[in-house]
């Protein structure tokens, strides 16, 4: 079917404000009078809070001070597991853990005030910072330091390994990754009578609303959450605004004025959520034909000091861990452990980049050990149409892994590239080139029955002038969601794009269409919107734009507007068993492959990215420029994860809390990328679209690792693939 608006590169709906500087991000909002808020955090990694002492000689008259005793409702952060206090009262589990809050109209005075507050903590000098330390039980934060365990099982791994001709095992590690949105976390809050208003940089307004309701014991109507322009999020503003929003609202309650909290970069890096570090033990068994018969994995995530939402990240990590392969015998154990670090949270990919690093690196390692090409090994083992994943999910026409793989090899002209690389390597004394691939996928929407539980509602509102407002709680944070959703509505209503506009993302104006996470906005919310549009078209029968306005006017009569809402409908085929982890984990998957060519300097072992090629199936592409922009941006984040990004500890706290030492890729590090799409429409996505946001994060690190393996013949198991690590491995293997 040919579409008019879907598939077209319409102008982003938010872009003019962004190129002129008119867009108001949270810190740009400047009420006539307001307080600056700040957090008083723990100055030790572990201990017991004894008290907070305000210098009696200091003039506190213009300050607002809040501690846990001021909380009207529950002192907890609403999450999947609400085990974290909003403000600590006794136990301190990480450096910087919020204890109290302070606000003043003058930023300078606020700093002075902070200096005059002394936190008294009985320090516990023993703490655990890493997964291995946590498992050693050097210190027990919670019983056994284990928050949660999960399991996926299929077939019989014991007989699988017994009958295997080849068995290879190794352990892979990945570090924290910071989202490093350019706009730090920022929130402003004020009270209107009994109503709390929170406006800020956030992904999920209804999460913030749930948090505030819990902390203040308020009803929906008394908590208004508004999204401001968001300067990047990537998961980092999924859960943290629930904390910051409640902090600001507490201060605003006592200040009787708006309170603005804007984190400084160092603070943002030091205490907000990050990608979970992981430790993955992986064992693969192959038969004599190199068929992957058996996979055993222990996938451990570092949840940080509170569990919060780690269990769903573990689930997604495990449900992608088996890679795009058909494997009869599988056992995957997932574990979340506790450490004395800030709670880890959402970051694009949500557990999958960690497990794919292990699986897709290990496949190449096994190929090397068996003396077969990693390409061939994948060809033998790719899951086919009609095949299934270890949860028992039957994959019908959805599977596109072979297609993206074939397309990539064609695009890079592999035999020619191979010869070029081999020729280069035989001539150069100081440099080695290599090419590696990673094959991967990403399930769109919430895991398992998550979407059923969410039961998202979205809608459209027809205005008297014929314009249509899109009513969703999904936020525009740069990814282009508001443009794409407007396109879907325009297409479904067969109206010109400029007759569609976005209603403000405000919990009092839009229904709860769910959080802006999990690659769900286009596919899930877009489809709900499309169905809402069908309702409108059922109500108003117009044939063309010519009679549209007339029919609208007849339909509305004296009314100013009419809204049409729709709730998410789970596609009939999807069945999921939450207890046994069996069934259809995701409605569909987007499929992808990366090919990465790198060059290693044999003197410094620095890696230069020479070429990055990506082929993906994301279903129907709603907006080609935005889609390729999402992929390119995701690739670059995954290159950062592969090569540079790492949180370094000093005395149990994060040390490299700045742009100079937390290394994200610069514009000079990234070559031109070749991004292309195959189109296999998804019948339950709007006009065939699938989710794409997280997909590009999953494959970068293993592709680079495999390219390094190709260049140097070394096997690395730990991110980032730093020159220091490469040098060590190269010298060891010489």
């Amino acid at each position, binding site marked *: 079917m040919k579409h008019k608006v879907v598939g077209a590169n319409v102008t982003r709906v938010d872009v003019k404000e962004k190129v002129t500087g008119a867009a108001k991000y949270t810190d740009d909002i400047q009420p006539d009078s307001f307080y600056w808020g700040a957090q008083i955090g723990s100055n030790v990694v572990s201990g017991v809070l004894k008290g907070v002492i305000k210098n009696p000689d200091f003039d506190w008259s213009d300050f607002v001070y809040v501690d846990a005793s001021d909380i009207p409702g529950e002192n907890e952060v609403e999450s999947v597991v609400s085990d974290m206090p909003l403000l600590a009262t006794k136990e301190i589990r990480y450096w910087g853990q919020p204890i109290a809050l302070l606000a003043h109209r003058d930023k300078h005075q606020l700093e002075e005030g902070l200096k005059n507050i002394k936190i008294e903590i009985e320090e516990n000098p023993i703490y655990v910072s890493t997964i291995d330390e946590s498992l050693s039980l050097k210190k027990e934060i919670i019983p056994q330091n284990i928050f949660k365990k999960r399991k996926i099982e299929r077939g019989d791994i014991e007989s699988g390994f017994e009958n295997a001709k080849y068995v290879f095992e190794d352990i892979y590690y990945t570090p924290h990754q910071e989202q490093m949105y350019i706009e730090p976390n920022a929130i402003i809050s004020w009270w209107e009578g009994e109503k709390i208003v929170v406006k800020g940089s956030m992904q999920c307004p209804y999460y913030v609303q749930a948090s505030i309701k819990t902390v203040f014991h308020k009803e929906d109507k008394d908590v208004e959450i508004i999204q401001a*322009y968001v300067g990047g999020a990537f998961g980092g503003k999924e859960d943290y605004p629930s904390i910051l929003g409640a902090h600001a609202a507490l201060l605003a309650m006592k200040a009787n004025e708006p309170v603005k909290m804007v984190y400084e970069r160092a603070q943002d890096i030091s205490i907000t959520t990050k990608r979970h570090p992981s430790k993955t033990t992986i064992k693969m068994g192959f038969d004599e034909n190199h068929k992957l018969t058996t996979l055993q994995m222990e996938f451990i995530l570092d949840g940080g000091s509170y569990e919060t939402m780690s269990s769903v990240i573990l689930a997604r990590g495990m449900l992608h861990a088996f890679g795009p392969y058909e494997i009869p015998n599988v056992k995957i154990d997932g574990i979340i452990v506790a450490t004395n670090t800030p709670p880890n949270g959402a970051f694009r990919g949500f557990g999958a980049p960690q497990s794919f690093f292990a699986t897709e690196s290990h496949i190449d390692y096994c190929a090397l050990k068996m003396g077969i090409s990693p390409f061939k090994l994948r060809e033998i083992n790719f899951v086919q149409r009609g095949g299934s994943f270890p949860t028992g999910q039957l994959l019908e026409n959805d599977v596109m892994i072979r297609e993206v793989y074939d397309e990539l090899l064609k695009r890079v002209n592999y035999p020619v590239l191979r010869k070029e690389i081999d020729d280069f390597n035989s001539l150069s004394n100081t440099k080695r080139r290599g090419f590696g691939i990673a094959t991967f996928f990403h399930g769109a929407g919430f895991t398992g029955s998550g979407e059923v539980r969410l039961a998202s509602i979205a809608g459209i509102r027809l205005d008297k002038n014929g314009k249509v407002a899109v009513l969703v709680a999904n936020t525009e944070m740069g990814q282009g969601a508001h443009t794409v959703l407007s396109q879907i509505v325009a297409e479904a209503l067969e109206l010109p794009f400029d007759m569609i506009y976005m209603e403000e993302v405000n919990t009092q104006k839009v229904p709860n269409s769910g959080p802006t996470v999990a690659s769900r906005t286009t596919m899930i919310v877009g489809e709900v919107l499309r169905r809402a549009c069908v309702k409108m078209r059922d109500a108003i029968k117009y044939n063309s734009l010519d009679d549209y306005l007339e029919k609208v006017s007849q339909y509305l009569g004296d009314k100013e507007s009419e809204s049409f809402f729709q709730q998410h409908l789970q596609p009939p085929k999807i069945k999921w068993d939450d207890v046994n982890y069996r069934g259809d984990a995701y409605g569909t998957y987007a499929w992808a492959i990366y090919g990465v060519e790198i060059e290693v300097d044999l*003197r*410094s072992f620095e890696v230069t990215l020479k070429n990055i090629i990506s082929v993906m199936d994301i279903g129907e592409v709603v907006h080609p420029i935005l889609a390729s922009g999402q992929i390119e*941006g995701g690739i670059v984040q995954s290159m950062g994860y592969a090569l540079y990004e790492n949180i370094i500890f000093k005395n149990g706290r994060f040390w490299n809390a700045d742009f100079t030492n937390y290394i994200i890729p610069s514009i000079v590090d990234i070559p031109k990328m070749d991004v292309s799409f195959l189109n296999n429409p998804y019948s339950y996505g709007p006009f065939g679209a699938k989710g794409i946001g997280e997909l590009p994060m999953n494959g970068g690190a293993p592709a680079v690792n495999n390219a390094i393996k190709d260049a140097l013949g070394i096997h690395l198991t730990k991110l980032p693939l730093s020159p*220091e690590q490469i040098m060590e491995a190269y010298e060891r293997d010489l």
Partner: protein
Amino acid sequence: MRLELVINGQRYTIDGVLEDRRLLDVLREDLHLTGTKEGCGEGECGACTIIMNNEIRLACLTTAIQANNSEILTIEGLEKDGKLAPIQEIFMRSGAVQCGFCTPGFLISAYHYLKNGGSKDVDSIRHAVSGNFCRCTGYSKIIDGIQESHDLMSFEKNENSSKNSEKEATFIDLTTEKKQNSINSNKKNIFSVSTKEELCEFLKKYGSEAGILAGATDIIPSIRKGGEKRLYFADVSKIKSQFSEIVEDDKNIYIGAMATFKDIQHNPIIKKHLFELVHAAKTIGGYTIQAMGTIGGNIANGSPAADSVPALLIYDATIELTSLNSKREIKLSSFYLGYKKMDIMRGEFISKIVIEKKQFISTGFEEVGSRKAVFISKVSLAHSLKDEELILAAGSVSAFPKRLLEVEKIFLKQDLTKDTLLEYLSKDVIPLDDIRSTGEYRQKTLLNLLWSLRENLLKK
């Protein structure tokens, strides 16, 4: 102080501004020009990039006193008479914008680049916006957008200057304003000096408590982080032009200490004679930092990783130190005495770098960093060879950048082995572990760089 500015063609007079209030806060909080963003507050992310007196600059590293009497262009000034600049139009449709928070900085950097005759070459574009970080787009579409804008941008001469600013000034009085934060709460004292003599007197008066704000790219972050011990600072904006000239005579090249790294990389004399210095200048921070940071500042900062120093050591540079009534010259190779310790006396400042012109057989400068722009080097190595005279200099491997005098002695001997080279290298430097790398990696990398350099030199 009274701050007089022309911003986007509009004249502003602001009374009662603290000398060390950041220009970023003046723009955002006092004038409500919130298009200029703050992403890090330390001159690293580029979100606050503006143009000041036709030079690209970071508003978070600029104090009010440094900005006084200048002409400023911010993102709000790109739109003229209700019409967007072509680059804005192109960014709107090319996918160069996602979350938009870095966009004003990128647009300003790109606008400045194109206005100053920047080419369509991709690597030149990358260099020009290397001080700007984006976490959303993957950069490709930003580069495309700048390339596409290249032929469409037209620039009026002096477009932001006096023509519009003749209009009456907007007057703002902050004298009674309470909520005026500045760069630090320990209130450092900042003075503006108008002559060389004033600077010398200032330095004499405050001795070790005095510092010079030239580029200020290191000092301001250091003050904000609470790491700066000095209390008194002299803003040298008014005398900068006297001390930033780059000239030559038959024998020597003279580089004013207040020349920026951008001045250095574009200067024809330096490009002709001191190629490795151009090379080093291009690797210092991102391009915005290169446009602000001065070579004198890099030397005086005394950082082990000061990128320009190894490049100057191989040219056997001499530095000129000026005090109230005298001048003295000292070889850069004997200027550093220890970590952040220098042979500089009370009342003296670095005024000039003098380099004798020579014909070399070979020169080189290599750096190993954590990424390809905006990094602090893990190891750097520079060399020059003239007849039999070899100079090797290394950075980031000892308390200060230094010549490898022991290695120089044996470097070109025929029967040298890598083990012997390491033995001599260990006499020169013992690299340490820090936040960026390990001592072991640094030593091995430096050894490898030296070994491959030696192979190349022996071929010549």
